[in-house]
């Protein structure tokens, strides 16, 4: 199993550009999450999903959108990038029965 994979690993955006961060998992987990980590800080939840077609906001959803059309994929969309969105983004998935989240390798995004 590859676990949780994320692409790209690094990206530089200009202010106002859009992009989609990709996340996929091959563990058949129903629950998936997007977090951001600012320098020297813990992770903050952006959006989460409990299954295909079901998504909900976390702590810091403004400026982001998500969709979940399949169990495997959970992309995060930035529509109008702002410098405040410079961060490292982590995707995670979990199996409700195990109460444990598994994290992807992260995407480092810089908005200039």
């Amino acid at each position: 199993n590859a676990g949780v994979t994320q692409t790209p690993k690094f990206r530089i955006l200009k202010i106002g550009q859009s992009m989609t961060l990709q996340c996929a998992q091959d563990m058949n987990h129903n629950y998936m999450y997007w977090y951001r980590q600012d320098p020297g800080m813990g992770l903050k939840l952006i959006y989460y999903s409990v299954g295909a077609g079901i998504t909900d906001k976390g702590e810091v959803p403004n400026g982001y959108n998500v969709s979940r059309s399949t169990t495997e994929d959970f992309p995060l969309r930035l529509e109008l990038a702002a410098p405040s969105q410079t961060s490292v983004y982590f995707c995670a998935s979990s199996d409700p029965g195990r109460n444990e989240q598994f994290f992807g390798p992260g995407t480092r995004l810089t908005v200039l």
Partner: protein
Amino acid sequence: ELKVEQNPLFLSMQEGKNYTIYCNYSTTSDRLYWYRQDPGKSLESLFVLLSNGAVKQEGRLMASLDTKARLSTLHITAAVHDLSATYFCAVGYGGATNKLIFGTGTLLAVQP
């Protein structure tokens, strides 16, 4: 609002010494997680604590949970340089969705 506080934020230790990292949280939860993060890397799950009084040990690390005091501790015994990393605690909330609120992390530097 659920808040999670870790202390200390930075810990410089000598090899061979013992120390404890504290994680306090502000509202009821019976799920507490400890993660390790190396620079530029993702999060590695260390411990999952799911009940009051839970204690888990792995090598030189031992974690415990007191849900009544809303406190978890991560104890380091006879520190070695390989333990140098940032350690995060995270508290589960939101029932079955198992969303996480993270502490700000403790940067541990073990000096020879």
